[in-house]
């Protein structure tokens, strides 16, 4: 059976008002359950692409289908719903709300999405599920849950962010340079743990990094610089 499509982009362009095109992608398809590595240097338009997929930005033209919803046509609240219910996002750093505890940070998506809250409660409740995810990401210590996030190391913070992205079984996890602040050892361990969790839940992963050396740990790798015609044009200028 042909795997279903999770993300499909066709002839997508994006530009801030009054500025030249930042992003121009003729075709990009990601299958469900696939773990895609996108290599992108800064300025390649990777954050813009992820913003378009997550539905916080709207393209100037083209089609962006995410989990069956056309993000280009959908209204703001439909995109907000899709993001809240079915997407998990991890940033480069500063992922966590500084004034909330580890547990409160991990549980945050359940507050905004009734769907995720329901799925979590079917799995035994927020605390149990957060504890399980954190443990599987290598954060075993029970006292950690109530600790302030500012007391954590960067590596621990990124794993908390991963647990938050994964809670409530999202269908798609987007990671924007989540390892750039980590040393080589913790980077590889983080990717292995994230991949295992994504696989276990059957989610799709889009992982963006400027470090092409990571590509081997994913199902497929693409270079955003070749994919994005706007970036190519800029380079030839």
């Amino acid at each position, binding site marked *: 059976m042909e795997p279903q499509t999770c993300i499909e982009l066709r002839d997508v362009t994006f530009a801030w008002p009054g500025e030249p095109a930042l992003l121009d992608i003729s075709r990009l398809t990601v299958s469900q359950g696939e773990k895609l590595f996108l290599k992108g240097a800064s300025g390649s338009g990777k954050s813009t692409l992820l913003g378009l997929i997550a539905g916080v930005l709207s393209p100037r033209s083209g089609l962006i289908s995410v989990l069956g919803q056309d993000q280009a046509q959908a209204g703001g609240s439909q995109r907000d719903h899709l993001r809240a219910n079915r997407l998990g996002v991890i940033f480069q750093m500063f992922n966590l709300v500084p004034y909330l505890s580890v547990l409160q940070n991990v549980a*945050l998506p359940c*507050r*905004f999405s009734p769907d995720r809250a329901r799925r979590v409660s079917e799995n035994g409740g927020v605390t149990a599920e957060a504890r399980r995810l954190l443990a599987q990401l290598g954060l075993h210590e029970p006292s950690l849950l109530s600790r302030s996030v500012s007391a954590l190391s960067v590596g621990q913070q990124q794993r908390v962010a991963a647990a938050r992205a994964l809670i409530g079984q999202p269908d798609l996890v987007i990671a924007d340079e989540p390892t750039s602040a980590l040393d080589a050892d913790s980077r590889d361990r983080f990717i292995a743990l994230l991949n295992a969790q994504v696989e276990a839940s059957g989610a799709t992963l889009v992982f963006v990094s400027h470090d092409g050396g990571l590509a081997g740990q994913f199902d497929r790798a693409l270079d955003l610089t070749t994919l994005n015609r706007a970036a190519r044009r800029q380079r030839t200028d």
Partner: protein
Amino acid sequence: MGVSILGLAWHSLVNRRVSALLTVLAVALSVALFLGVEKARTAARAGFDQTISGTDLIVGAPSGQINLLLYSVFRLGNATSEISWPAYQRLTARDDVAWTVPISLGDSHRGFRVMGTTSAYFDHYKYGRSKPLTFSEGRAFDDIFEAVIGAQLARDLGYEIGTPMVLTHGLGTAGLSDHDNRPFRVVGILAPTGTPVDQTLHVPLEGITAMHVGWETGTRNPLADTLSESVIRSFDLTPKTVTAVFVGLVQKGTLLRTRRAINSDRQEPLLAIIPSQALAELWAVMGNAERLLLAISGFVVAVGLVSILTSLLTSLNERRREMSILRATGARPSHILFLMLAEAGGLGLAGGLIGMGLIQLIFSLTAPLLTASYGIALPGTGLSIIDGATLLTVTVAAILIGVGPALVALRRSLADGLSVKV
């Protein structure tokens, strides 16, 4: 467990507690000032209205009703003319009049007004809600040279029962015109009332006449000081005039008719006024200042609210990343708006409540003190509808003020997308 949206607003605010507390303090102080002015105004009004009660009419020589009220009740200014003793006797003889208390003003003692009257004054003069005068020490006068002093006069001059006094003709402080051969002494001290009675020295009408023996022409008769006390006592000391008369009626129903009858006396022009009416007219004159004060304190509340706006706007940069994390984890624009408006409303509500508490505390601490030493009651300083209305207004205004910064936060969080480079 997770944390609710309102909990998020709370945690975020606690995270910025110093600036939040300063903002709440600014709002609290402005609300306390406003409520304090409003309550003091209400209390002053009530206290003012209760300077005199139980007296149905005040009768004096024709001038204006405010003028008559000012000199007869507040001891301010002077009577331009007086009414004759026969006119006073005719008033007393009227069938519809239950009692009369004549008063005679015009002299002073060390800056305090001297008032000649009869001992009936201590029975009939009422203040507050029909509270009678009471003696904290001693008794009413029953001799020409006996005096009863008000509480503040006793305190300020240090007078006690038996203290001898020299009373001055006219209103000068001391000096040439001392009546030193007519020794008055204190026989009674009145309890504090919070009215001008506290600053008054009361002597019998005959005492006033005795003070003026030898002064009939308006200047000092050289013989005046040669008269001994016993010679003065032998004179007929019935006054020829009195300054004003307090009148109580047999039936309140005849008030307007009696007033009209007195005002149209054929033998001597008289002016009868209804104290409550004159007080209301006088308050209308003074009320402008009080309304101005209220308006100013209203502006202070507006300044307090502006501090909420300042606090919200300065927090926007600080919270930019926070907002974009919340957006990425699924917060909708309505959540962002709610977070900002809840914070604005919370600051307003907290400031309002603390301001209310502060002013209640201040009044409950000072009220017993004021009543004990000055006899001033502070009516209407408890919680009232004004407090509720102020609290509601401040909270709603704070939320409305929050709309601007909330929209800015929303627009930024939409434009920032998923990543903020901070």
